[in-house]
């Protein structure tokens, strides 16, 4: 079994609202996989359903080869999970929390926990209720990692944490990945994701926009800035060979995110008298994220809408 998580045609409806709509992807073993999406995109619902907290409207999720709804205990033995608001018993001390949780896991947990607490420089005897947000997050992460889980799931692990704490979280994630374990995280910190992720998935309003290895995604997509002499003239035919993911037009400049931009297309465009400047740049993750989640702008006329590819239509509808 190569994939650690497989999500197959998953939908979840809350009342009339579709939180997840027909989402399908899988997560290979040994990668850092980042899930991006705006607030309310369905990230937490997806993560919670991987752990069996959410009953799906339709579709199947398998985590480490198990169905989370049918094997919730086995999932907890094998998967470490840090939620964005970790539930810890307020009256326990840091050391007691580790001792309490160690009862659910094989021997070695407490030793590993103590080691992590020391690395994070957490006070053993402080009560959880007296800890800062960053310290609580470190306790939750230590608890989630101390049984050496084959999969670590983090729901916005670094939101609201200071740069130093974030850095130690990232280092822990890197350590897991270097040991060949899988890390699945959701995040809004695009710059962080760009450093640590092998794979990214972008969720927008419950629909999966893209899932791909980050480097492959960056190299397959191009941002084109075209300056037009006359914005009313039809664009050259070479444009139709590319898949348009996003486009906005402001006066005489046309800004596009495309897939399939080749030197041949570039040569053909540079012959066109109506285009007097062509800038092609490699997108960074933020460009990609915005391109996949922003609606097309309204200056875009109806006739040309009909010509764009299916992917373009999809991001319009979404």
């Amino acid at each position, binding site marked *: 079994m190569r994939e650690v998580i497989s999500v197959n045609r998953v939908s979840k409806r809350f009342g009339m609202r579709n939180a997840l709509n027909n989402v399908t992807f899988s997560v290979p073993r040994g*990668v*850092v996989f980042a899930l991006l999406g705006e607030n309310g995109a369905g990230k937490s619902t997806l993560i919670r359903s991987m752990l069996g907290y959410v009953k799906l409207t339709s579709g199947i999720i398998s985590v480490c080869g198990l169905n989370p709804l049918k094997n919730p205990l086995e999932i907890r033995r094998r998967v470490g999970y840090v939620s964005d608001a970790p539930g810890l018993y307020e009256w326990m001390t840091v050391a007691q929390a580790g001792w309490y949780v160690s009862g659910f896991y094989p021997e070695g947990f407490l030793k590993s926990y103590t080691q992590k607490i020391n690395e994070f420089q957490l006070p053993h005897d402080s009560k959880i209720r007296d800890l800062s947000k960053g310290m609580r997050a470190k306790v939750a992460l230590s608890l989630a990692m101390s049984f050496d889980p084959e999969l670590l799931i983090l729901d916005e692990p670094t939101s609201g944490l200071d740069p130093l704490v974030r*850095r130690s979280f*990232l*280092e822990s994630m*890197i*350590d897991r*990945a*270097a040991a060949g374990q899988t890390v699945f995280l959701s995040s809004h910190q695009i*710059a*962080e994701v*760009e*450093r*640590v*992720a*092998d794979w990214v998935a972008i969720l927008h309003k419950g629909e999966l926009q893209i899932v791909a290895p980050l*480097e492959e995604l*960056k*190299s397959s997509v191009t941002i084109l800035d075209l300056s037009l002499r006359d914005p009313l003239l039809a664009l050259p035919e070479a444009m139709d060979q590319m898949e348009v993911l996003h486009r906005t037009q402001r006066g005489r400049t046309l800004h596009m995110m495309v897939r399939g931009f080749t030197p041949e297309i570039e040569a053909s465009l540079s012959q066109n008298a109506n285009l007097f400047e062509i800038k092609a*740049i*490699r997108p*960074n*993750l*933020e460009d990609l994220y915005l391109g996949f989640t922003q609606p097309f702008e309204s200056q875009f006329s109806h006739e040309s809408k009909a010509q764009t590819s299916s992917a373009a239509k999809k991001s319009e509808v979404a």
Partner: protein
Amino acid sequence: MQLTIEPNNGIPIYEQLVRQIKYAIAEGVLVPGQVIPSVRDLAKQLTVNPNTVQRAYFQLQNEDVLQSLRGRGVAVCDGAKKQCVVDRQHLLAERLEAVLDEAIRGGLDEDRLRTMFEKALKSAIRTGDRQS
């Protein structure tokens, strides 16, 4: 060895690592035989994905810049410096071409460009003399 990574500057992170390690060898910051940080250590130091560091190391090993010493990590190859100096020249030539390309697109003619180049070169040599 001080490396800096800019994840969003358009050059893949592993490629940035490859270039910076070659530059460090070309400049003599890293010397042949020197053991460099392990994949895990460098990944943590730079907070980048370890698979990315691994990919850069693999590429440098394929180009005979780095070699894996069994049980002792990864070290700079004996003949690496000469090759890295050449590679650095290629990279510089590429950047120079990009600047020239921009200038020509911007409508500068050959004579004007040559004057600008001579002037920039003279000023760079003067700065270099003052520093050495």
